[in-house]
């Protein structure tokens, strides 16, 4: 691993249960507002109504009513892309001589599991294949490339809950290696009954609003959303005299190779990912202003994160934003990356919503209230099914 050239973040778009754009999300986070509720978009026969963080139906998603062939996940990612491009100053038109890539994380958005179609298929009703066509039309990276007329590398990362973080790390690499001038990178996932049932079946879902890192935490709440970062080379940004909101300074990832759904008890993969992220950023732990932790609210995840952060980045404040967003799966890393950039700009971090009572089993606890931070860099980290661990390092921008 070697020191990485910083890659600029020129624009951000984000929507989730905390808000329909980045500004609204930040307002929710700093005020600690959260209103998870039983799912409204699908029904469930579970005896318990597990709360989720849905995007309200009044939020206008990209292409609603005009592009029926797109899935909700594709609409979410296109909505975030529209906001990010506007924020970056590019709007919809890229110069034709620019090589623009797309790298997007998802889980639901790349899974062929339409329940209505399959129900009819099982009954022998010979269902029409419109849902399959929607699935084929809705690969998130491809949907962005199609909608914004891009022809650079196009990659949908399906690394479960670290997908969004990995997509940003990989996209930054494309710019560093000269494959692209700019990359639209991020993640998106919609709520659906399959993931709702699946996470409940794993017995890691809280039947009340989630409480990351709290002594009484019982699990996660699911959420949905998307976030996009516009990544650009510094040369491209200079040429159009646009400021960088932040820089991608480093990226690390590693696999536990331990268990399909449980993290390594010693956090070995996370330790290696953090070490690589630090090494590639050329910084020391002393430069880290804060860590936006994965912080799902499950017993295992929060224990491992707390132990590893306490050992590798002692005294660095950390927090989880999932108390206000829910766990948005593959979108989580991208949404949290967007938040991390915004917190670096604001030089403050929000309270960890849902956290009140420190867990005596955890060596470190998250921020309880809004606090000011200093330091040149910040971490956003994701842990995932399959033992994936990914850490992205952001540095302060020009603004």
């Amino acid at each position, binding site marked *: 691993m070697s020191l990485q050239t910083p890659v600029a973040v020129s624009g951000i778009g984000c929507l989730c249960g905390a808000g329909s754009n980045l500004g609204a999300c930040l307002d929710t986070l700093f005020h600690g507002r959260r209103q998870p509720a039983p799912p409204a978009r699908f029904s469930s026969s579970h005896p318990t109504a597990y709360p989720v963080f849905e995007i309200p139906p009044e939020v206008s998603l990209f292409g609603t009513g005009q592009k029926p062939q797109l899935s909700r996940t594709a609409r979410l990612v296109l909505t975030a892309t529209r906001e990010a491009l506007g924020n970056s100053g590019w709007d919809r038109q890229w110069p034709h001589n620019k090589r623009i890539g797309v790298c997007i994380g998802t889980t639901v958005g790349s899974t062929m599991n339409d329940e209505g179609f*399959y129900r009819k298929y099982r009954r022998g009703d010979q269902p029409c294949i419109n849902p*399959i066509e929607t699935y084929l039309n809705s690969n998130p990276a*491809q949907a962005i490339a199609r909608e914004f007329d891009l022809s650079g590398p196009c990659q949908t*990362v*399906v690394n479960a809950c670290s997908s969004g973080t990995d997509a940003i790390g990989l996209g930054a690499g494309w710019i560093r290696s000269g494959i692209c001038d700019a990359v639209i990178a991020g993640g998106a996932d919609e709520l659906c009954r399959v993931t709702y*049932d699946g996470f409940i079946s794993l017995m890691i879902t809280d039947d009340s609003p989630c409480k990351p890192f709290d002594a009484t935490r019982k699990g996660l709440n699911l959420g949905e959303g998307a976030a996009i970062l516009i990544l650009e080379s510094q040369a491209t940004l200079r040429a159009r005299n646009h400021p960088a909101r932040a820089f991608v300074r480093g990226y690390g990832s590693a*696999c536990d190779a331990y268990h399909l759904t449980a993290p390594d008890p010693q956090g070995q993969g996370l330790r290696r990912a953090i070490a690589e992220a630090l090494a590639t950023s050329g910084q020391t732990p002393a430069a880290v202003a804060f860590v936006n932790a994965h912080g799902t609210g499950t017993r295992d995840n929060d224990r491992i994160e707390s132990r590893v952060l306490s050992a590798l980045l002692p005294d660095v404040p950390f927090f989880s934003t999932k108390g206000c967003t829910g766990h948005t799966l593959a979108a989580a890393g991208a949404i949290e990356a967007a938040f991390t950039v915004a917190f670096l700009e604001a030089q403050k971090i929000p309270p960890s919503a849902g956290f009140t009572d420190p867990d005596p089993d955890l060596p470190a606890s998250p921020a309880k209230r809004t606090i000011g931070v200093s330091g040149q860099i910040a971490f956003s980290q994701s842990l995932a099914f399959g033992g994936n661990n990914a850490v992205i390092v952001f540095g302060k921008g020009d603004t």
Partner: protein
Amino acid sequence: MRIALRGVGVVGGFGCGVDDLRRTLIAGRCSPQTASVAGTEGAGEMPVFLADTSRLAAFIPNRALRRVDHFSRLAALGACLALEDARLPPTVRQALGLVIATGYGATRTTFSFLDTVLDHGDACASPTFFSNSVSNAAAAHVSILLKITGPSLTVSQFEMSVPAALLTACQWLEEKRVEGVLVGGVDEYCAVLGYSWQRFFGPGPTTGTRPLEWGRQSAIAGEGAAFFLLCRDEGDPPDYGFITDIRQGHLRHGGLDLAADALLLLGADGHQACARRYARHLPADARVATYTPLYGSLPVGPAFDMAVAALSIKAGRIFAPPPGAGENPGLKIVPRHARLDATPIRCLKFGREGEYAMVTLSGRGSI
């Protein structure tokens, strides 16, 4: 770019391992099996190239495979075969990265999970099926079974999945994140795919795939895995040559920039909608070959194309295209027993929307 290709592991309708693939290439034929499918006129059958994973037991104890589904077994077998082919000591595996490409993922398990919900209600959803249906479950199983602790990635981009995965694998090597990358493509057949296939394309062909007859829909579904061990260009020259270029693009931004006499291994697999793009964009004097009649049509087909290119470089000759892939009077199809000169082999694949990818493999003498 100059990435050494040090091992190949394949499993598909033709058999298991590079020796089976080489034998099939030399024989020039492979017969699909039949799979039952719920068609538009009741239950029926369609031809499919199905893969057998029983040889995985030679690498992994059965006990460790108890909860590993067919999709992940395909991936694990492809990975084991590639490592065996590369003669890589187990101690080096910790320094590897893993990249898996898939078009549709673990479809059988995904629908098995839905079965548990539809049969017994939401509260009876199977946690085992759910966790194995997650997109990166195969990568997780491979990492655990083979103790690979480097970066792990799964990508899903339909027909472009394999070139996308290769791009990342090569990037990791050039960034010196890892000493080697195990990269591969895997896709499985399932009954729901078969039903959808018939609805999209009608019943399978009765005379085998004719991939170069552009006006004809003749694709036969396939499943399998093809894996590669990639390393930086260090040490002994690799038998399978080097990846020297990976290009991705879209035809709406212009055609392919290809030498008039390029040697092209086409990913044409009998789908009429994609075939017209090959017809329109191939240089007039290009020498072409395609081998999809030997392993069928599957999103990660480009991984099998690349395996054939790698075997060609190792053998120093181009394998004769199989019957059915040797007929198009407008094309210069590579002749039987053609010696491979210094020309690189370009594996070209067009996607359904006009996107394309080209992976170039070069032998030692061609750089």
